[in-house]
């Protein structure tokens, strides 16, 4: 704190020295004749005088109150003097200038006014005229451009309207398409849901299949082992199996023949029916012919011939019926034989199954014995 106070007092002295230097400089300039350049050089005197109270306040041995009193009072007096002087001088100069201006207004032929008009006002007027011409040209150009632009804009508006109509039509179409697409999307979503459900079901089934596969592998391994055991036995029963297959083939051929015979039997029955009908017709015709015997003797002979033919056919039919009966009896015998053979084969199969069971039991016993021996 003390240091700043000391600095302040030192600065005071420095400022006083600076102000003294200003005073000396101004005095020297005045003596050189600088005051001729100023209209009111006393204003500068007062300005320099403003520094005097600050110089006086630095005089040694003065109490603080006296110091500030000199400073405040000196500045007040100097500023009042400066204000009064500047105000007065400004008023006088201002009035002088106003008087000159009034003279210019009152005397239009005043040389200064004429010179002012010629040198300053006329060029300005010329400039204004040029600017007006330029402006009028510019306005015309702008009008033309505006008209052109208006025409262009109108044409563009027409084009735009046409485009807008097209766009609106396209928009309608697009909306319709969008609606269709949305419907499709909904359907697709439904299908997707169903697909996901099925997928989940398939995954469940896969898991189940995996489990079953693992079980099947185990079973297959067991079957393989059993197969290897049974292979030996199957080779033994192979020949017997072939014989059985041959017998089965023979049975198939017999059944085919039986079917053919059944067909022939049907045909013969149909013919029998037809013949009976014809016989009935002939009997009716013979009744009619007996009434008209005299008139139709020739026809009677013909009918007799037809009757003979019919008798022949009947004899043929009787022969065929006899053959058919023979074949039928043969087939019945064969059927009986086949049934006997089937029964034999069935007995043989049962016998083989029993043998297989015995072999399996023997194998089980052998395995048990082996395990017991191993333990």
């Amino acid at each position, binding site marked *: 704190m003390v240091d700043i106070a000391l600095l302040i007092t030192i600065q005071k002295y420095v*400022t006083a020295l600076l*102000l003294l230097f200003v005073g000396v400089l101004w005095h020297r300039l005045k003596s050189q004749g600088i005051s001729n350049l100023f209209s009111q050089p006393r204003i500068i005197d007062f300005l320099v005088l403003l520094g005097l109270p600050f110089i006086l306040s630095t005089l040694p041995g003065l109490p603080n109150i006296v110091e500030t009193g000199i400073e405040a009072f000196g500045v007040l007096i100097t500023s009042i003097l400066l204000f009064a002087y500047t105000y007065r001088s400004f008023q006088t100069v201002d009035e002088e200038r106003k008087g000159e201006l009034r003279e210019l207004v009152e005397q239009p032929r005043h040389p200064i006014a004429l010179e002012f008009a010629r040198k300053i006002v006329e060029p300005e007027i010329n400039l204004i005229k040029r600017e007006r011409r330029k402006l009028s040209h510019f306005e015309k150009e702008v009008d033309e451009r505006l008209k052109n632009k208006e025409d262009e804009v109108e044409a563009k508006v027409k084009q735009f309207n046409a485009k807008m109509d097209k766009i609106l039509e396209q928009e309608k179409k697009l909306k319709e398409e969008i609606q269709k697409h949305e419907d499709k999307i909904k359907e697709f979503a439904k299908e997707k849901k169903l697909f996901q459900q099925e997928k989940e079901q398939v995954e469940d089934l896969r898991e189940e299949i995996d489990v079953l596969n693992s079980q099947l592998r185990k079973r297959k391994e067991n079957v393989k082992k059993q197969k290897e055991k049974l292979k030996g036995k199957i080779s033994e029963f192979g020949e017997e199996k072939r014989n059985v297959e041959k017998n089965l083939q023979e049975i198939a051929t017999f059944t085919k023949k039986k079917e053919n015979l059944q067909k022939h039997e049907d045909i013969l029955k149909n013919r029998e029916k037809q013949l009976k009908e014809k016989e009935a017709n002939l009997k009716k015709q013979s009744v009619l012919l007996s009434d008209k015997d005299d008139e139709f003797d020739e026809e009677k002979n013909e009918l007799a011939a037809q009757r003979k033919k019919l008798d022949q056919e009947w004899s043929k039919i009787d022969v065929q019926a006899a053959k058919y009966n023979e074949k039928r009896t043969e087939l019945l015998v064969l059927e009986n034989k086949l049934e006997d053979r089937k029964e034999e084969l069935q007995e043989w199969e049962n016998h083989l199954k029993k043998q297989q069971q015995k072999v399996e039991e023997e194998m089980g016993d052998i395995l048990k014995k082996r395990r017991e021996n191993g333990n």
Partner: protein
Amino acid sequence: MAINLVIFAEYLIGFIFLAYSLIILIKRIEYENKRIMRGYYALLSGIGVLSVILLIKGIKFGLLSFNEMASTLAFDFVSQLILLPIFGIALIVGMLFFQDA
């Protein structure tokens, strides 16, 4: 306290006159010689700084008239240590411009 009030009034009135004369001088400057205009501007800026100094000092004494315990060091620091030398330098610069003219 009364003395402080008187000094406050003196500074304040001095500030008002100085500021008013500064305004008149700025108006009047157009009637002066163009060669010494720069010097004039330097002097006017010096007067502006001085008016600020007067205002600060006036505030300081105004505050002291109400409260004697008020710290005056800050006001002294600004006015005496900073602004007063600027006032002196501005006057010297103005004189140097006049010398060149």
